[in-house]
């Protein structure tokens, strides 16, 4: 049996562990590329949202590489995500692939533990080792997902300070490769320090005062760098400090009802949108308010073209929240038309405006830039984020 799953940025490392620990061979689809998206667009319904097309391309690529078991996440929320797996299965069958099975990984409520049965399904038939293997798989999966989140957080901060452009990208690639190869529990436990040390040994310029921007949006778009035109790297190389709290780990922990950060965001968003309407709408609104009160300089909202929940979130932010919180926001709706130069121009203009705005604010209020930063309330971001920020700010 050869299992596979669609791409979602670096999360492939975590998913790979989950399947491999069950004693199943994994074949990874190629990193999302033009060819995969072309195929996805060709076979998908015309107006479906973009992640559908991208993942369909990935699944086809995996089947071409010889996979016979596909794992695809599903949801049963009000947005289109719940239809992905079943419609994709149908489309793939129509494309001529007959001998494969598609296992939907239901993530409606992970506390119901129905997903364990699905993990058992892909596992070996030997009942004796099944439970220990599943336990190990889940444990490794969570650990690796957490480390990936930490890498992402550190990446956003350190790229704004790097002396030689491209250093951070190299460090991240190295770390991800290393994480992929670490397959012992001791190694994973020690990995947090590895991440810290590697980033702390980077050649950084601590005298800089980068702009701070929060990023949020639909999860597949936010995590897959090919799809979002590597927005975090582009912004970082313009000298902007970025924090994106959305990650695979964040999502999984939320589904176990243990994510207090997301609960806090829901609390913030409640007066404006009282219930979860699918996608990340509620949390995007919460994140917007959170970053605004934390004294950030800007906000980026990214979503697939015509995504129903995110469009609602965008409406609420532009029509209402922006007037209250006065945090500049830029929207990117992604689809298969990717013009990277126009995109870069928009980002540059946004960053320029943010610079001008910050300078004016500091001049008007006659305060130093350090005092300006202190407007932030200090319980923003997770532990690791704060550690990194502290390291960067101590001279």
């Amino acid at each position: 049996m050869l299992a596979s799953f669609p791409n979602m940025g670096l999360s492939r490392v975590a998913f790979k562990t989950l399947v491999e620990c069950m004693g199943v061979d994994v074949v990874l689809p190629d990193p999302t590329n033009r060819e995969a998206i072309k195929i996805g667009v060709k076979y998908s319904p015309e107006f479906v949202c973009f992640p559908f097309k991208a993942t369909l391309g990935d699944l086809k690529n995996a089947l071409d590489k010889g996979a016979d078991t596909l794992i695809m996440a599903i949801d049963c929320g009000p947005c289109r995500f719940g239809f992905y797996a079943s419609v994709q299965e149908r489309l793939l069958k129509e494309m001529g692939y007959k001998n494969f099975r598609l296992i939907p990984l239901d993530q409606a409520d992970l506390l119901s533990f129905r997903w364990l049965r699905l993990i058992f399904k892909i596992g070996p038939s030997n009942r004796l080792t099944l439970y220990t293997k599943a336990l190990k798989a889940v444990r490794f999966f969570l650990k690796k997902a957490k480390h990936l989140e930490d890498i992402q957080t550190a990446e956003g901060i350190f790229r704004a300070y790097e002396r030689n452009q491209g250093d951070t990208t190299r460090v991240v690639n190295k770390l991800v490769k290393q994480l992929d190869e670490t397959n012992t529990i001791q190694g994973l436990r020690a990995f947090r320090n590895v991440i810290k040390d590697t980033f702390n040994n980077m050649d950084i310029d601590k005298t800089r005062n980068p702009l701070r921007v929060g990023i949020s949006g639909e999860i597949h778009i936010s995590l897959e760098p090919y799809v979002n035109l590597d927005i975090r790297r582009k912004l970082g190389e313009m000298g902007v400090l970025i924090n994106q709290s959305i990650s695979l780990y964040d999502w999984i922990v939320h589904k176990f009802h243990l994510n207090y950060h997301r609960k806090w965001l829901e609390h913030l968003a409640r007066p404006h949108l009282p219930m979860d309407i699918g996608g990340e709408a509620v949390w995007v609104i919460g994140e917007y308010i959170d970053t605004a009160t934390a004294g950030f300089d800007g906000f980026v909202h990214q979503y697939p073209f015509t995504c129903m929940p995110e469009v609602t979130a965008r409406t609420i932010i532009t029509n209402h929240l922006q007037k209250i919180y006065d945090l500049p926001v830029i929207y990117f709706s992604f689809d298969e038309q990717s013009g990277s130069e126009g995109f870069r121009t928009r980002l540059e203009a946004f960053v320029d405006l943010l610079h001008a705005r910050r300078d004016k604010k500091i001049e008007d209020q006659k305060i130093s830039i350090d005092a300006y930063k202190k407007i932030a309330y200090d319980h923003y971001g997770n532990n690791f984020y704060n550690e990194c920020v502290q390291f960067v700010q101590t001279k």
Partner: protein
Amino acid sequence: MKVGIPRALHYYKFFPFWKKLFDELNVEIILSSPTNKKLVEVGVMHGFGELCLPVKVYYGHALQLVEEHPDLDFLFVPRYVSELKESYWCPKWISLPDVIKILPNCPRLLNFEVNVKEFPIATAVIELGKQLGKSQSASLEAYKKAQKYYDEYLEFLRKGVSVIHALRLVLRDVSFKVPKRKSKGSIKFLLLGHAYNLFDTYVNLDFAKKLNDQDVEVITIENLPEHIFKEQVIVNKKLLNYWRHEEEIMQAIRYFLTKGRNEIDGVIFLISFACGPDSLISELIMHDMKAVGIPYLAIIIDEHSGDAGLLTRIESFTDMIKRKKQKQRAASKQKIKSTIKVS
């Protein structure tokens, strides 16, 4: 007490229920005018590009009410989350009050949340009565009557009356009576789509009338017998089809794909641009139609609708079907003749 109701979106589905409910509670209803050009323009100005047309039109209606009736006590923007367990309405319906309440000078919204997952509809009605200053028993009484009236309305629709006509009767407070002059045509189409696309004659450029002019008889989902909608459609065993309206569309289609194969000559699906649910459903339906061989036409509408282009498409579609039918008839006649000769 005055309550404003925008004549868009849920109006085409639930208005009789609301009307009876508010009548019983002694509340005056003020409707916005039927959709017109100015209304759509205002709505489009307020909503940005990626929203679907029905929501933009809704903006227009709500803003017109706010502007022309400053003495409104409430604006009625219900929140329909789920009507059955394990089902949802579209996310844009669910978040509609949150989007409307931030419009400029918007009066207070009348909160009415239909969410069967959490509480029964009666609770929602009691909540509604509280905001209007009515007692619990009065609201419950009104709810019972409204539900009965709404069931009668649905029953009336199943007799084959068009929704536009039925809504007119409801507005005039006339009792339901099937009109004598029924529309007849040489061919029969099933017109699929959401109620707010099918029965808003401005948005769809009077689609039903265009078809009638081509000598086509039109039926919609609302005209179909109840038993069709009893059983769930299974697209794929792993899939729970949770969108309520889409489920109805699929059930209707299933009927015509199987038992009712010969009852209709073609299917037209009206989709508004950027409609999330329909983007997937229409694809599924198209595949099925190809397999069975019922002619199928999907028309996507947005605010830039050109009348002439639409007419051309309808004409060519109906002409094709008519010709096909003639051919079939001629062929069958020939067959009969030849069999007579042989005998």
